[in-house]
């Protein structure tokens, strides 16, 4: 048996031991490969998809690759941790540390090669599925057919062989061969509880409260400036939360004998504190990674729903036409005729209304304001079945600025409320109420006055046109088609606005971003799950031994279930709950930035992640309990 044969057989005959590491490597390769299949699709390379999207995909690929590196490195080191005793034995038999490094290096190369190949094969199986999903999320004109991804295979293979090579060198380099006695005792010795200081525990709480407080307090554009400091503070706080505060709490619990010595609590807590150092690191990592995933997906989804919903909010009508100021009556009339003929061409049933928008000076003189006749307003309102407005004599109703406009400072209505509108004969109109409506939105808000008062106004400073069409329901496809035609006509292009078409365009442009974001988010989330899985199964043998010795003294199956259940639940939910809270705060801050309520979107995103985590927990628990029980009973 040569040394190479020994290293080779060590892997092949110990399949179970190497399985976890192998599978996580395989998973990483598979993720990267599926992404590559998507990114290198001929439809993108030949098609008219814009450069920004390509750049975005390049960056996303880079992120996944970098993340793979750290993920595999982590898997590797936790795998080596569990083999300390084996290395100790080899060294006792006379293996030099150089030989051990060589062995680890060879093992890594073997596993790396096989996981790259099988990852690519597994990725091929899922290729069609991922392309189908992409096709639906993306809204692209071309369909993404299945193709044989030669480029993706070559790129993935070369990248990961390189990656494994680097990691192998890296790991065999850092594999510290400590004192022999430490290696042999390896698993028996606690790495010790991290030191918990009261001061740092308090600091952890303060940092988290401070970070959350700031994130929830700031509004509007300041959110952007507060973001970086808040992220730093909260990350630090999270780290201290797991390494200090949680240790401190567990210590307190351990000191309290009536809690610690109560039935199975002793087994649970002693184990927690025994592994606290490893646990704290895993918890921190999982919490942060999951937070990134939640926030990324939440904000992308929220942003998309913000854009589309808000667009619908401002543009209540199917089609809006606003001519340029310099356009003459004739041009306006010609445009309207053209729009009508396009609508007819697409056989769209639509009602049309037009009004003249008149701007007047007020008592303040400095600015002009829009004043709308009640009857005009009500004609528009009738189209979209909004409430009519009937202002009294010498009174004006203020229509609030649309909520979509991000601005700091006082709202438009507050300014308008202070103004007075002069009428003929030294009389004034006094604004008396504020309404919010979808009918005719304006940047700065406007007044609605009754028809009689309107006639008494001085002549307008300037006047404008607004023409709207409201199509019957269920004609979205035709309207999108009409919108495309408006967009092609030079003279209509910037004056006409078809809401359904714009939303279609937004979704189309947003699709790749959403897809990539979703993809990366899910990759992060799944790897967070794998970290937990690793944590659990690294200690499995130790756990089995422990429960077997307790079972000899007498441990019922229910008690075993209880301990294992709580242990796994704590591992799975402690970091995720933290991440969910982080994500909720981040999304709330985001919604504050846009003055837009994201509650539905955030709860949908966070809720579905929580649900996935619960399912994941149930599956892992099932197998874990089964493993432990098989050994014990």
């Amino acid at each position: 048996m040569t040394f190479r044969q020994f290293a080779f057989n060590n892997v092949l005959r110990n399949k179970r031991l190497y399985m976890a590491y192998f599978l996580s490597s395989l998973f990483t390769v598979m993720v990267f490969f599926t992404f590559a299949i998507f990114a290198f699709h001929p439809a993108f390379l030949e098609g008219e998809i814009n450069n920004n999207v390509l750049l975005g995909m390049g960056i996303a690929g880079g992120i996944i690759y970098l993340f793979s590196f750290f993920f595999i490195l982590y898997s590797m080191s936790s795998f080596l941790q569990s083999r300390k005793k084996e290395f100790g034995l080899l060294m006792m038999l006379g293996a030099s540390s150089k030989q051990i490094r060589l062995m680890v290096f060879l093992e890594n190369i073997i596993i790396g090669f096989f996981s790259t190949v099988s990852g690519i094969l597994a990725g091929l199986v899922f290729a069609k599925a991922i392309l189908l999903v992409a096709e639906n999320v993306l809204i692209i004109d071309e369909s993404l057919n299945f193709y044989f991804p030669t480029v993706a295979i070559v790129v993935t293979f070369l990248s990961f062989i390189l990656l494994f090579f680097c990691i192998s060198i890296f790991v065999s380099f850092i594999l510290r061969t400590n004192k022999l006695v430490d290696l042999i005792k390896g698993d028996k010795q606690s790495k010790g509880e991290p030191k918990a200081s009261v001061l740092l525990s308090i600091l952890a709480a303060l940092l988290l409260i401070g970070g959350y407080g700031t994130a929830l307090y700031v509004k509007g554009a300041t959110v952007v400036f507060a973001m970086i400091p808040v992220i730093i503070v909260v990350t630090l706080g999270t780290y201290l939360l797991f390494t200090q505060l949680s240790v401190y709490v567990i210590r307190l619990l351990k000191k309290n004998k009536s809690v610690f010595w109560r039935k199975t609590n002793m087994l649970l807590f002693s184990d927690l504190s025994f592994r606290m150092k490893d646990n704290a690191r895993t918890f921190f990592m999982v919490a942060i990674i999951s937070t990134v995933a939640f926030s990324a997906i939440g904000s992308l989804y929220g942003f998309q729903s913000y854009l589309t919903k808000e667009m619908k909010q401002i543009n209540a009508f199917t089609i809006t036409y606003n001519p340029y100021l310099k356009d003459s009556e004739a041009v306006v009339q010609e445009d309207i005729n053209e729009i009508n003929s396009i609508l007819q061409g697409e056989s769209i049933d639509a009602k049309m209304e037009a009004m003249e928008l008149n701007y007047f000076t007020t008592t303040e003189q400095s600015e002009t304001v829009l004043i709308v006749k009640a009857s005009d307003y009500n004609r528009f309102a009738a189209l979209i079945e909004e409430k009519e407005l009937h202002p009294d004599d010498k009174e004006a109703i203020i229509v609030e600025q649309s909520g979509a406009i991000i601005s700091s400072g006082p709202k438009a209505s507050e300014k308008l409320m202070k103004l007075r509108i002069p009428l003929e004969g030294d009389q004034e109109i006094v604004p008396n109420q504020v309404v919010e409506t979808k009918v005719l939105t304006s940047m700065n808000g406007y007044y609605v006055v009754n028809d009689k008062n309107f006639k008494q106004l001085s002549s307008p400073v300037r006047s404008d046109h607004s023409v709207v069409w409201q199509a019957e329901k269920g004609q979205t496809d035709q309207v999108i088609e009409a919108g495309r035609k408006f967009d092609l006509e030079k003279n209509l292009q910037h004056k006409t606005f078809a809401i359904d078409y714009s939303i279609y365009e937004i979704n189309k442009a947003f699709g790749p971003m959403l897809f990539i974001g979703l993809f990366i988010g899910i990759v992060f989330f799944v790897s967070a799950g794998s970290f937990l899985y690793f944590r659990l199964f690294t200690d499995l043998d130790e756990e089995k031994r422990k429960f077997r010795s307790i079972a000899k003294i007498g441990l019922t199956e229910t008690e075993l279930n209880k301990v294992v259940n709580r242990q796994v639940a704590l591992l799975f939910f402690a970091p995720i709950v933290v991440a969910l809270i982080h994500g909720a705060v981040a999304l709330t801050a985001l919604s504050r930035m846009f003055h837009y309520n994201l509650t539905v979107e955030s709860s949908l995103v966070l809720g579905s992640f929580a649900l996935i985590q619960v399912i994941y927990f149930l599956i892992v628990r099932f197998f874990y309990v089964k493993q432990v029980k098989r050994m014990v009973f």
Partner: protein
Amino acid sequence: MLKLTKVSKVYEGKVAYRALTDINLEIEKGEFVAIMGPSGSGKTTLLNIISTNDAPTSGEVLIDGKDPHKLKKNDLAKFRRNELGFIFQDFNLLHTLTVEENIVLPLTLDGTRVREMKEKAQKIAENLGIASIMNKRTYEISGGQAQRVAIARAMIHEPRLLLADEPTGNLDSKASKDVMKMLVSINEEEKTSLLMVTHDPQAASYSDRVVFIRDGKLHSEIHRGESRQAFFQKIIDMLSLMGGDGSDFSSVRV
């Protein structure tokens, strides 16, 4: 107290292996019995059957007139916890717990009140001379101390039957002597029945009666007379008779 009638154990497999054949054994209350025999004679199988870790293929085991093998799984765990005490060759202490926590573990699982647990642990620790190491972790103490901790754990719930599997197997002769004296005093003072499997004639000489088994069958038994020294000599003679000379027996069980 403990009564075995015609207990047999057959390990099924490609080639069925008969580990025990028709073992009849009775232990009185307060009696200290040692079981000896060469490697592979079935000592450990016998102990596993008595300790309910393994079920006999045929025959009956009665502990205080009850057959624990007829209990359900969960009841069996509780029975083990309440009626039996175990001492293992490799101590079987949990290294995530301190010495004190290891000792009270059986009571903790049973849900005893904290004050009661503390009192009992303190009392037993003083008796066994381990009161000074109560807050140490298991990897910070010596083998002899670890076995005393294991004895304390086995005794804390005042079991009716104490089962010891090579309690001196991992200890040097001085620590072995201490541990054996401790077991004798527990046996005399608490009137706890004691069953010990051992290779070590020195350890066996502390018992009231030594039962020899060979090839899964009872071979013979000898009772202790007045002097322990003479008893020790008789044990050595018996071992030589059974399988060549006395030095065949290593102190490490295979």
